[in-house]
């Protein structure tokens, strides 16, 4: 019975892996945080993570092409209207780190940023 449940779980994770395309997922299932980018703000602006715990950040926008860039973790993505952009992030350090829109998107672009807080 226990063996069967493990096989079932493994199958579910494999399906999840296929559904996320190029993103490779490790077990167990990773937390997903959805972020909406709009002129000219990320919602939420503050993202709280734990060191060493992987998360998947999902980005959507209904406005124009925008970007997500967290230089301290070397992750970025284009955020295209009508699509969901995903990046996997495993925080390897604690502290507060900036993320920003790195595609010039309009009048308020330069203020379009947020913070990632990573705790131990």
């Amino acid at each position, binding site marked *: 019975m226990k063996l069967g449940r493990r096989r079932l779980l493994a199958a579910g994770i494999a399906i999840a892996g296929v559904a996320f395309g190029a993103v490779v997922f490790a077990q167990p299932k990773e937390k997903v945080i959805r972020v909406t980018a709009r002129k000219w703000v990320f919602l939420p602006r503050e993202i709280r993570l734990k060191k060493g715990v992987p998360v998947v950040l999902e980005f959507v926008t209904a406005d124009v092409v925008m970007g997500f860039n967290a230089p301290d973790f070397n992750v970025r993505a284009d955020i295209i209207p009508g699509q969901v952009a995903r990046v996997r992030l495993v925080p390897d350090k604690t502290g507060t780190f*900036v993320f920003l829109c790195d595609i010039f998107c309009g009048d308020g672009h330069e203020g379009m*940023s947020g913070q990632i807080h990573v705790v131990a």
Partner: protein
Amino acid sequence: MSESIDRREFLKLAGLGGAVFASGLAGGAKFAGAAQDDFYFVQLSDTHWGFNGPVVNPDAGGTLPKAVAAVNSLEYEPDFIVFTGDLTHTTDDPKERRRRLAEFRDIVKGLKNKNVRFMPGEHDAALDNGQAWKEFFGASYYSFDHKGVHFIAIDNVSDPAARIGGEQLAWLKSDLATQAADARIVVFTHRPLFDLYPQWDWATRDGAQAIDLLMPHKNVTVFYGHIHQEHHQMTGHIAHHSAKSLIFPLPAPGSQPKREPIRWDPAQPYRGLGFRGVDAQVQKAEYEITEYPVKKA
């Protein structure tokens, strides 16, 4: 006393409040260029015409005309003048963008020296891939030669993702192929080509590819804008010098949590704003930079 020495003495003695920064380039004695004359040019940057923010610059409409007057009043006329981008402040309205570009163009027509080169910044060009900017100022990347120095203007702003792009990089490669390894090369660009501080978008996404193309050349100096302050950094043997703005200064890279303009200080108006003169001593391979305030203290 030669004219160049007179000019250098002038720059040092002018008392305009800017620190003199001299940057010697290695290999100067081996330079074998055909036409070798000292010369002098002026760099202005980040004028952001159309900006409205009295807290950081209550004289936003007057600073550029004052800078034009200050350039015109230099004792020694420069060989040419270059604006390294963000001529205008961004707007989502294409008509307003063109209005600002037209006003900027009309103001700088007041420069006595008519040999003026222009480059776009992301505020001018990123929202329409440089379309409006090109209507007023022509090609956004180009090269030219002046008195034995090869100048290259690189556009790293018309792509809103801050990429130079494959087409322009291929052009840069072919342009550099015409230059000897010891040629004097000066690059103008808007954003830093290196990762100065990506957390504040102070970078060019494919700037490393441009630097890789420049690296085989021994004598390369880059002048750029974007960060609204002086900054001097080397990548290998290539020197990069950013210029002050003519609208508001920004804090030093990473010196505070957010990249916010430094507030106007009524006790020190125009502090942190200015332009620069570059005295190119070609035979000695030195570039002597002088930073000027908009108004004399």
